[in-house]
């Protein structure tokens, strides 16, 4: 059976070249192309390729982050990174990606990479997830709404509210559930969100002020947002300082 491949690169000529090389490999179908990480994640959801050839430096969402989102899929594709010159990235991924290719890609190297992908499948991606989790904050959160994939830009998020096993992501265009712990989100996005309560993180740049409620508690008011969120006694002093410094 032919291997189904998705090509992801922001440069049209680079995509063209990979497509031409793949054609020579035989037993390979190019099922689609994407120009950035976000489009790649969406394309994988739609097309379910076996292998993704993934450039690292791309706009909107880079290849490393796209790989992290892909790793959470039920049947993740095998990922082969293609990069012009990312020494650090290469060092980090040598151990965990199926393979990586340097540009300009050689036909025989591409063939070996595809062979490896065929043999090993996507098994090594879990490690990748843990390796990069500490490295850098993602630019998007990935959620599923009625089976469909939704990518929410972190910059669009107003606040995060923990409920049972989920975190509700309240963003500009609505709300979605993600299966992540509030604590780990706080660690990852510490410079973007501030904790106001045991169950709530608020985007610093949306914080408009503090108001005292009828019950004597203090609430946070957010820009462009009707909700008022309770601030716990423990987080209040730090938050007052923050609001004053805004």
């Amino acid at each position: 059976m032919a291997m189904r491949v998705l090509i992801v690169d922001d440069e049209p000529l680079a995509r063209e070249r990979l497509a031409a090389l793949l054609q020579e490999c035989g037993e390979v179908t190019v099922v689609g192309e994407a120009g950035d990480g976000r489009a790649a994640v969406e394309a994988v959801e739609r097309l379910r390729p076996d292998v993704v050839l993934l450039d690292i430096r791309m706009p909107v969402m880079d290849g490393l982050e796209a790989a992290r989102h892909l790793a959470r899929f039920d049947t993740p594709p095998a990922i082969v990174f293609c990069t012009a010159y990312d020494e650090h990235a290469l060092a980090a991924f040598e151990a965990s990606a199926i393979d990586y290719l340097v540009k300009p890609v050689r036909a025989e190297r591409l063939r070996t990479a595809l062979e490896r992908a065929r043999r090993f499948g996507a098994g090594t991606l879990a490690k990748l997830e843990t390796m990069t989790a500490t490295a850098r904050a993602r630019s998007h959160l990935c959620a599923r709404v009625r089976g469909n994939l939704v990518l929410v830009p972190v910059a669009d998020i107003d606040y995060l509210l923990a409920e049972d096993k989920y975190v509700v992501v309240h963003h500009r265009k609505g709300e979605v559930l993600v299966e992540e712990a509030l604590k780990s989100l706080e660690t990852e996005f510490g410079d973007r969100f501030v904790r106001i309560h045991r169950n709530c993180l608020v985007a610093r740049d949306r914080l408009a002020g503090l108001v005292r409620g009828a019950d004597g508690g203090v609430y946070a008011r957010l820009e462009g947002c009707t909700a008022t969120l309770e601030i716990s006694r423990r987080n209040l002093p730090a938050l007052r300082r923050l609001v004053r410094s805004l």
Partner: protein
Amino acid sequence: MPAPTAAPRPSWLPDFCSLPVLFAVMIVAELLVLVILIAPSDESRPLLPRLTTTSVFVQWLALLCAVCLCQLRAPLQRLPPWLGVAVAYVLMLLVTVLGSALVFRLDQELGLGLTLPVQFEARFVWRNAALCALIGAALLRYFYVFEQWRERVRAEAKARFDALQARIRPHFLFNSMNTIASLIPLRPQEAERAVENLADLFRAALGDEATPSTLGAELDLVRRYLDIEKLRLGERLRVDWDVAELPPAMPVPALLLQPLIENAVYHGIQQLPAGGTLRVRGRCDGRHVEIEIRNPCPPAAARARSGRGMALANTRARIEYHFGRRGTLDVDAGAEYYACRLRLPVTAEAD
């Protein structure tokens, strides 16, 4: 973007505890002693004992000043230079006045007769203070000029080194190679032109920094660079040129504009999925040229990477080296755009 590390403030005050500086102080002090002794006076004592006592006294005062300045170097350096110099100067005078008064009194108490008769205390002290004022001023000025010179040599060397380091990103080289590899079977003529452009670019990048370039040559180089990037980024990169006013013959340092343009592409246009328009605008009023490089970029919140700092600091250092304070490079970083504004004095050869 990480705050660029502040360059160490150019120092005007040397380390008085270092041996070469101490030695210089002692030499100057001894020269002063010789001048005092050679100058005609009504002193009747023989020369040799006078040489000894005067030497001991002057060296003692000089070293006392040096030790004070050495100990107070850190706080003095923190003051604005003019105030620091003034404080150091007053300090030296104070040490001399107090030291002279002390020695005079001691001499009177012990009755050694090494200084002057008792009624001349004020004269002794003030004369010493005046000598210290003159020599101290000359010495501080000398050290100031010397330190400035050393600083400039150091900065120049660093700027050159940085220039070599920061020139063209390896990322760009390999991506261009990849582009050329893609073009060869598809559009061989474009591939050929891309190789020529790449060669020109690297010839400039590997060239000698000392060979001055001209504004026209720099703009040509930027056009070649952008031609390559256009192949890579396709429709995403659009360039709006408005540089007709710029004097093409004006001498400028080599690779003045390319690193800034590369930044604009790398951090701006390339980060936008739909790309954007890079604007290069040049103005000339006869005395100054002003070049603005402006590019759209992702909103600040989404800007993840840094790395503009290097090319900026490098270009700034080289501008300062070539044009002094009259050349400036300002950055205007808006929420969704980024602009570099170069302002350079038109140099005589430009006409």
